[in-house]
């Protein structure tokens, strides 16, 4: 594959680095350059961030091509963003050849306290090893340039001009003309990091004054760290979480953009400042920014900020003039339209003559990569079902393979998936320690033959055998997908998170009722919406479902799904519910059994209106149901709520299970369903059934359920896997691995 530019970057960066990269990609595409994006997993980010949404949109929209490390690429220019991504060697060979390589230095080599931020010699050496050419260093500002050593490392040279951040002015419409509000609205936007804030509380309160009668302070990128830094925050400080989207709207609602950071921090450039200037905000900064932004901003010491604001707030002409200066500065020095000129000026790379022709040939197939889905679950199938939800959403080019302890393997195999079975120690009556040693080898054998790009593990328990197998393959990107609602007894598994590169937590509608162990570490995981295998609109319509199930007209159908009861005896519940339902002459009970249930004793229907059926996934037929009585396991609970099936939830309250009671309580209190507890409520089962089948009650529950907002977390997980399946890793040092 021939490319004009190959961008190399850690696509997970949240802030300015990714935004600047996105602007360059878009500008290159507009100019007709053929580009690719090679994703690197660098050592800086430990949080399981997904790909930056701007970058993903550019890849999805065809502005640039996702590059697999194995793809043979000839690029005129390799443009790598941020030196930290090359702190270590590439941990695999790539098929990239290039004539020139630029490393954009987004950060000073040393901070203001003299602390080394990256080892330039090491970065250059690693770049040289990866691409085999001289490395052009491209500082984003004079701040970064000035921090470089006088003698550069061998194989490196310095570009004669700074690689200044660019911005697409069309994305940053001007603030509406007019004087500042009263009270004046002061705002700022930065990653939620103490270093991005003034070190001293006194300075912070001078810069962002607490006088609510005169000032309103809006902070995008706030968080609990601010209280840790300053104590209780003033009432006029409005904090909002850091965001990727909606920034232009936020800025347009401000009068002044005021940005000061910690004495320890060395801001290489300040992309958010550039965005504020682009919108035409009067921007107030500490004096050290003057070489970067010149007369586009106003510079003041913290004690003078109020005075400067006062001056512009009372002089509409001065405000308008400064606002115009800001916008003009950005247009002159930082417009994305300048990107092609920069390429031509520095590298003699000119715009393709036939831009459309180049773009049309850009999309190429990627080599197929395997994704190994491993799961526990002996007698259950919840984890396997969740993995199938993700697998069926993977893009072409990623091949799912299953290795499961679930007896439901046949369901994956019958759907055409490549599937392997790993017996659980209970299934072979082995001691866990003995079994784990074997499991490690079984998994390692499978991994070494499949050579998957991603290992996705779905379970509450993380077995030592899994950890040992993963330790043998440090280049295999490993994800632990674990649901919340844990009991305390599961807490020891939390520390196993370190064995994985990322932890993903599928959401719970009832998350407010979850105070279990996982709720304490939610800031360390990627949270996604609840996962469903089948989405509500993928179900059969009512008539078709009733036809398949051969339901007579005029019959009220109640689905009964109480689980195997192997660890929580539901026989009394089943008998009570059945009697109460069948006492009603128009009611038919569909007693839905798992295709892998453990009870093999014969189990005859109690009458002609009691049908015992095996259905998977039963949710496909749920529009045929008028109501349901179920145990609120994760899948069934979310299916019935999101599918708006009026449901009586009977939680399995075994200590082995997740906190089903909490889910059911959420539903009961919110009017989404009803709750009946085996040991508390069973004597009143008739009343519960009467309420469940009351038409007004059912209508109310369904209406509330239908109003629950939801997107499928399976899509997010599939995207996450896609983004990590083709990353080159530099987050570990392969020279030290043995």
């Amino acid at each position, binding site marked *: 594959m021939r490319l004009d530019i190959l961008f190399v970057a850690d696509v997970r960066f949240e802030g300015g680095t990714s935004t600047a990269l996105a602007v360059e990609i878009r500008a290159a595409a507009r100019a007709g350059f053929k580009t690719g994006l090679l994703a690197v997993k660098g050592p800086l980010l430990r949080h399981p961030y997904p790909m930056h949404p701007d970058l993903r949109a550019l890849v999805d929209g065809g502005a640039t091509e996702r590059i697999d490390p194995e793809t043979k690429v000839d690029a005129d220019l390799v443009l790598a963003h941020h030196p930290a991504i090359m702190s270590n060697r590439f941990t695999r060979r790539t098929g990239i050849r290039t004539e020139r390589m630029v490393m954009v230095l987004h950060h000073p080599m040393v901070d203001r306290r003299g602390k080394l931020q990256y080892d330039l010699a090491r970065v250059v050496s690693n770049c040289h090893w990866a691409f085999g050419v001289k490395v052009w260093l491209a500082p984003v500002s004079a701040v970064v340039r000035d921090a470089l050593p006088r003698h550069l490392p061998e194989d490196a040279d310095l570009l004669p001009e700074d690689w200044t951040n660019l911005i697409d002015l069309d994305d940053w419409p001007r603030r509406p003309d007019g004087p500042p509000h009263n009270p004046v609205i002061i705002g700022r936007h930065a990653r939620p990091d103490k270093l991005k804030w003034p070190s001293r509380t006194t300075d912070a309160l001078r810069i962002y004054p607490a006088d609510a009668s005169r000032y309103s302070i809006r902070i995008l990128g706030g968080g609990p760290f601010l209280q840790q830094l300053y104590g209780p925050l003033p009432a006029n400080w409005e904090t909002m979480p850091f965001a990727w989207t909606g920034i232009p709207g936020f800025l347009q609602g401000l009068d002044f953009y005021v940005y000061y950071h910690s004495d320890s921090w060395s801001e290489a450039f300040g992309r958010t400042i550039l965005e504020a200037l682009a919108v035409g905000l009067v921007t107030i900064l500490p004096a050290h920014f003057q070489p970067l932004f010149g007369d586009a901003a106003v510079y003041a010491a913290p004690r003078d900020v109020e005075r400067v604001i006062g001056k512009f707030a009372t002089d509409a002409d001065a405000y308008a003039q400064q606002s115009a200066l800001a916008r003009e500065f950005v247009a002159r020095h930082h417009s994305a339209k300048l990107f092609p000129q920069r390429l031509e000026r520095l590298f003699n790379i000119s715009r393709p003559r036939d831009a459309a022709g180049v773009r049309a040939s850009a999309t*190429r*197939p*990627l*080599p*197929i*990569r*395997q994704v190994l889905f491993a799961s526990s679950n002996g007698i259950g199938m919840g984890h396997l079902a969740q993995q199938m939800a993700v697998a069926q959403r*993977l893009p*072409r*080019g*990623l*091949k*799912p*393979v299953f290795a499961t302890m679930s*007896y439901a*393997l*046949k369901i994956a*195999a*019958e759907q*055409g998936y*490549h*599937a*392997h*079975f790993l*017996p659980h120690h209970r*299934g*072979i*009556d*082995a*001691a866990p*320690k*003995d*079994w784990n*040693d*074997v499991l*490690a*080898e*079984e998994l*390692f*054998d*499978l991994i070494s*033959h*499949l*050579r998957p790009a991603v290992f996705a593990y779905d379970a509450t328990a993380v077995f030592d055998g899994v950890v*040992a*197998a993963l330790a*043998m393959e440090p280049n295999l990107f490993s994800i632990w997908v674990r649901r919340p609602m844990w009991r305390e007894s599961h807490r020891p598994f939390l520390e196993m998170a370190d064995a994985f590169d990322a932890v993903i937590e599928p959401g719970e509608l009832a998350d407010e009722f979850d105070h279990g162990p996982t709720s304490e570490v939610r800031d360390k995981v990627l949270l996604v919406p609840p996962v469903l295998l089948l989405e509500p609109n993928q179900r059969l319509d009512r008539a078709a479902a009733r036809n398949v199930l051969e339901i007579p007209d005029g019959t009220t159908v109640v689905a009964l799904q109480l689980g195997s009861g192997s660890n929580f005896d539901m026989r009394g519940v089943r008998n009570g519910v059945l009697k109460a339902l069948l006492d009603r002459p128009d009611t038919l009970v569909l007693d839905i059994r798992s295709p*892998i249930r*453990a009870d*093999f004793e014969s189990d005859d229907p109690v009458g002609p209106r009691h049908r015992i059926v095996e259905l998977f996934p039963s949710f496909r037929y749920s529009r045929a149901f008028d109501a349901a009585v179920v145990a609120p396991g994760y899948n069934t609970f979310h299916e019935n709520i999101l599918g708006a099936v009026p449901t009586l939830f009977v939680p399995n309250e075994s200590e082995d299970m997740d906190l089903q009671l909490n889910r059911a309580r959420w539903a009961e209190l919110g009017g989404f369903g009803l709750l009946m507890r085996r040991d508390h409520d069973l004597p009143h089962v008739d009343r519960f059934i009467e309420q469940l089948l009351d038409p007004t009650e059912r209508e109310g529950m369904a209406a509330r359920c239908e109003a629950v907002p939801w997107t499928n977390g399976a899509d997010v997980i599939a995207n996450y896997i896609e983004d990590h399946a083709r990353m080159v890793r530099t987050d570990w040092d392969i020279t030290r691995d043995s």
Partner: protein
Amino acid sequence: MRKLKELFLRKDKQDPGDEAPGDIYVYKSKEEISTIIVTTLGVNPDFLEEIIVTTKRKLSGKSDRLIYLTDNSDFTIFRRHGVIFEYLPPLAEQRLHAADMPWQAYLQERWGLLLAKWRPRRVLAYGTTIDSFLAAAPTASIPNAADVPRS
């Protein structure tokens, strides 16, 4: 990582007949257990029940555990009888997913691992023998074709 198989091979115990009770790797913590592997590869599912009933009746010594090796993904019959089983993907699935990995190499390794794991004192075959099963496996993975629809 490969210590289990290496241990197994070093002791030159590929002949299952040498195994003695109490020497089973996956049952290190248990005593006086010996195993027999009963392969049922390619067996018509209708005959599995009879095989299980027969082998349980005829083969189970006091310290024996029977390990059934199946290529049938429906495990119901084995679970109903409460027996231990291992699974290998059937030939049809190997062919369906031939490009995913070098199947023959994997299955040979897998069989070696199962022998090391269970150290059977005897291997009894119904249906296709393990040797034939392994010989029929796709020999090498086809290089990944770009962007073909997944199966």
